[in-house]
């Protein structure tokens, strides 16, 4: 492996493993008035934070690197893992670098977590971002515009700097580019998955949670170039799409296990917080209007929004076809109602399309993958041993 690539990977791994948000602290240390705003995984208009001169920081739980002590004190055993580690990080001062926290409407867990935040940290800025479930421009759109305006006001108060239209349009452009670059990487991986192993790609994209978007865009671009320059060989693996993981992220070991068990990931719904818009936001005209329209017209399908007419199933089948996948692995966080409740519907859609699939659950701190390896292994065995027979 080239030194540059090794160094890049080293860096993104360090960013990933650092549960103290050192990168954010360092960024803030560079200017006395620098502020950072944390947000949970999805549907957060990071452009607004960026335009207000602050750093948007994606908070994705503590993974398997954090020992949970106080976090468990707040959650019964049948609640997923991400709120525990998030609370743990907050109570142990790891989130002190964040000047505010946004909780988008992902599910009841995150929603109530926003209330817990209010109770536990009455002095910090916190806001529940109620994303509209109504997609008519005059109804849901109007509501969302008002929410966005309010957010913008809040951010102006927080940063002491009101974002003007120009700043907003600039931020929109910055994020458009970031998403395009990530999109290009996904595209490349879909063609040659052996060049971009999931465990690398994941870390590279994930670094965007703590880096300024401009820097992250560069990082993604150089990774794509460096990896392409490596001499990596095609292996005899099954091509799979991994779904179900949009909020609590799986441990890295799980992605590695899947690959070792013979499954090559060609598409996934990991890290949707950075990729939830499927198209560019308009860089001209009223920026708030542009952001609201983008949400209504080109936000990705997740279990968090109401899906009329089984749209998610169609989307999944289409992803399998587009990426020439041979099967789908459902990989949902334990106790995640949104992901688990929609699974049977997606399974039906796959069954109707004759696409093989398998499923298992994990927690972000799962450390034993024996059972998952067995299942994924059997799945890839069954795709390979019988595919040509």
């Amino acid at each position: 492996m080239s030194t540059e690539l090794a160094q890049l990977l080293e860096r993104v791994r360090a960013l990933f493993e650092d549960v103290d948000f050192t990168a954010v602290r360092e960024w803030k240390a560079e200017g006395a008035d620098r502020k950072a705003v944390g947000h949970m995984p999805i549907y957060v208009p990071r452009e607004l934070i960026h335009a207000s001169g602050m750093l948007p920081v994606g908070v994705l739980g503590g993974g398997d690197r954090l020992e949970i002590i106080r976090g468990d004190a707040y959650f019964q055993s049948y609640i997923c893992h991400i709120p525990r580690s998030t609370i743990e990080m907050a109570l142990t001062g790891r989130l002190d670098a964040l000047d505010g926290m946004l909780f988008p409407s992902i599910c009841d867990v995150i929603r109530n977590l926003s209330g817990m935040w209010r109770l536990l940290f009455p002095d910090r800025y916190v806001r529940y971002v109620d994303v509209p479930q109504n997609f008519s421009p005059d109804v849901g759109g109007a509501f969302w515009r008002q929410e966005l305006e309010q957010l913008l006001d809040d951010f102006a108060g927080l940063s002491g700097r009101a974002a003007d239209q120009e700043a907003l349009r600039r931020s929109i452009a910055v994020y458009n580019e970031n998403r395009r670059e990530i999109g290009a990487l996904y595209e490349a991986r879909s063609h040659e998955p052996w060049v971009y192993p999931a465990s690398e790609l994941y870390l590279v994209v994930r670094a965007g949670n703590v880096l300024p978007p401009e820097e992250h865009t560069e990082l993604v671009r150089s990774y794509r170039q460096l990896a392409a320059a490596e001499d990596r060989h095609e292996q005899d693996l099954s091509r799979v799409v991994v779904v179900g993981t949009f909020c609590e992220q799986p441990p890295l070991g799980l992605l590695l296990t899947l690959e070792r068990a013979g499954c090559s990931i060609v598409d996934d719904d990991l890290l949707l917080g950075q990729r939830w818009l499927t198209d560019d936001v308009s860089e001209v005209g009223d920026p708030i209007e542009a952001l609201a329209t983008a949400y209504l017209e080109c936000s990705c399908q997740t279990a968090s929004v109401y899906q009329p007419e089984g749209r998610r199933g169609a989307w999944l089948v289409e992803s399998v076809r587009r990426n020439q996948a041979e099967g789908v692995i459902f990989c949902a966080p334990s106790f995640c109602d949104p992901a688990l409740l929609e699974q049977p519907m997606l399974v039906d859609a796959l069954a109707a399309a004759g696409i093989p699939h398998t499923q298992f659950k994990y927690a972000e701190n799962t450390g034993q993958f024996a059972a998952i390896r067995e299942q994924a292994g059997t799945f890839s065995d069954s795709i390979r041993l019988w595919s040509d027979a």
Partner: protein
Amino acid sequence: MKIFVGVDLGSTTTKAVLLDEHGEPVGRGITNSRSNYEVASRVARQEALVTARFNLVRAALAADPELESVAEGFLPLLERTFRREQYREQLERLRVELQSAARRDRHREIHGELRDLVDRIVAEMDELAGRHYGALAVRKSDFFRDLAGADYMILAERYARPGEIEFETLSGLFDRAILPVENSVSETSVEDLVGRALDAALTTAPSGGQGETERLAVAVDEARSTRIEEVSSVGTGYGRQRLPFPKEQIRSEILCHGLGAHVMFPATRTVLDIGGQDTKAIQVDENGIVTSFQMNDRCAAGCGRYLGYIADEMNLGVHELGPLAQQATTCVKINSTCTVFAGAELRERLSLGQKREDILAGLHRAIVLRAMSLLARSGGVEEEFTFTGGVARNPAAVAALHQLVAENYGERTVNISPDSIYTGALGAALFALSAERKAA
């Protein structure tokens, strides 16, 4: 002497504590819990009576300044003699049961050989018994089941003849025989056994002069003749509903642990009890009254039984785990604390080449970590803290707890008493006493 009894019928062990009318503990007994709860509570109580009697002897000897030099050696001797007698008696009952198990139909073909082999094993166990109760012996456990079981299995493995008499057959005999041995109470009363031990100890005690031997006999006689009168008793613990006690003599183990810890360490405000299959975190006020508590839910992960499985897997006594874990140089991160998976996880990690001590250290930390979240849930550790229950006897668990409490709550006084396993029973006995006082 008037006494008040507290019995804590736990999932793993049954404990009894005797208090005198001033609330001073005068006796403690422990046995492994078994299917016959009544027997378990009777045995624990008898064991407590035995220690009470020993304490009387100690007091009588102490009362006579002339006996100072003999007293020191006499008491341990007495205890060893007693334990050994008791062990032998149980061993004999085990032999009878083993023989009857060996006579069962399915062993018809090998019956003769099996009988001989059993006799041979038991005879060797009897010899080994001497070693368990030697002056310097370190016993793996206090319970007959464990002691005899360990010896038996080693011998069975040695004498098994694959193809003829399988190890599995022999171990099966033990599993079958131990039940009736455990679930019946010895014919010989404990007082008799104590009496016999006293006689034996008197004869074997290294005598000083003629006068001393006589004075010793007098003191012992005095201790022997004191009548112990049981006034009332209170039961608690997991199995309390099945104790042969009326409802008003039953108390929740939460209250008992809270009160017991308060009496042992009056400044205690937080109590953590890790028992065989449950963990409780309790907050108490300045009077030992419980103000809040948390228990584990329907899963026994990370409780004492976990350590039991591990010990089994490594063919060690639970006593030995802690010290071994303390030799660790690093602490392996353990993921599953499912009690049943404990053995599998251990094996898996050993096969990955990790060191036994380091894995053990990780296991202990994992258990304490689970307890830490219950603690946090009950309100954390704000002031003085007491760790009770069987796992508090384990030095590695204690060390992990010290560390985690310090890391999370800062330096706090952490009390651990060698008698921590009796905390619940002590609380129960205190309830018995205070009920009596109220009535009076």
